[in-house]
């Protein structure tokens, strides 16, 4: 499998290391080369300096034909935009964007991009530890709608996201396998009709 990761922070570097160690082709981008110090010395993938929201940069990096795209920078909007470039321009079947604003995280999941929200994850971890009811049991919000530009790929790109979520070739059932399959129906009722 070929994976593209935008943002080499702690999470990006950790996932890059995991996928690389599992024998996958990994391309990781960051705007600061210093960020690549977080990668383990054994990392055998490609680390490139560049803006992951820029289509040309992604193309040069080899994003074409990737199976997995993760946008994990510190900017919610950058992640939303990069993920949409991945879906729209490259038709990458599984795309996850980190979106820390819960409202935006939900809105983009309705727009066909799987989102992971640190605010929800942490709040729920603390709720669970304190014995309080957990509000977002699935962690990742699976894409529940069609991407606005999905028609240009015959809708295949957006549709494939939910279909293949958790079944990334070679990754096996890991974190997010079952959760993602169940997250769709758990989404709010308002999801239908937005994309009309």
């Amino acid at each position, binding site marked *: 499998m070929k994976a593209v990761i935008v943002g080499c922070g702690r999470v990006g570097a950790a996932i890059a290391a995991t996928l690389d160690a599992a024998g996958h082709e990994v391309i990781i981008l960051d705007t600061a080369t210093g960020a690549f110090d977080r990668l383990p010395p054994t990392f055998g993938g490609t680390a490139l300096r560049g803006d992951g*929201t*820029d*289509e*040309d940069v992604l193309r040069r990096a080899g994003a074409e034909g990737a199976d997995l795209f993760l946008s994990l920078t510190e*900017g*919610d*909007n*950058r992640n*939303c*935009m990069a993920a*949409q*470039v991945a879906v*729209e*321009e490259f038709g990458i079947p599984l795309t996850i964007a980190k979106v820390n*604003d*819960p*409202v*935006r995280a939900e*809105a*983009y999941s*309705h*727009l066909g991009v799987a989102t992971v929200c640190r605010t929800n994850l942490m709040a729920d971890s603390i709720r669970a530890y304190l014995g309080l009811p957990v509000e977002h049991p699935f962690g990742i919000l699976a894409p529940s709608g069609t991407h*606005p*530009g999905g028609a*240009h790929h015959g809708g295949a790109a957006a549709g494939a996201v939910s279909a293949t979520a958790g079944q990334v070739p070679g990754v096996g059932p890991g974190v997010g396998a079952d959760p993602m399959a169940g997250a769709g129906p758990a989404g709010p009722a308002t999801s239908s009709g*937005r*994309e009309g």
Partner: protein
Amino acid sequence: MFILVVGGGKVGYYLTRELVSSGHEVVLMEKDRTRAQQIADEIGSIVIPHDGCEGQYLSEAGANRADIVAAVTGDDEDNLVICQMAKHHFDVPRTIARVNNPQNEALFRHLGVDEIISPTRMILGSIEQDIPVHELLHLAALGESELEIIEAHLREGSPAIGKAPRDLQIPDRCSLFAVVRGDQALPLRPDTVLLEGDKVIAIGPTECEEMLHAQLIGMSPAEETADLG
């Protein structure tokens, strides 16, 4: 008309001021508190000192009843997200985004932003009118479609010189509709013979540009680059 402006830089500030003076209901969102206060002191308490990308604050600003949302911050990704949130989460009928990187225009249009204003493209267009860089000039983009109006300057060596439109292979979705010859604008008929120095005005989708270039100018830009490389 209720207009929500996001981004209180120079563009957002003057835009808000003009809209207020023409009698519209306007709310401006600017996340920098000092800047927001500065604008509020000048044009009144219509400034919300919060990030217009954040769902909660968009809601508080009344995004759900806005007729228009204009995203004019200096960052393309912010403007995209503001417009998408407005459109898909708050059902705003019309969204306008400022785009700095001209390459983002197509993506934004594709992702549902209603109107895209690219100062970079406008300035580039203006410069190209004086100093033709590509000989194929973009005169205007047509609203929401991917159509644009293009001017082709026929210089020595153009394969179109001495020919009429019916002899050229014009892509299906394109139309050559006028020719500027000296100070005169003439309608372009199928049998109008083109002369050196003519400026042919065409309308068509962006993807036909290369073919128009080949027919009216000569080599396509890609081929020229290949030659240089």
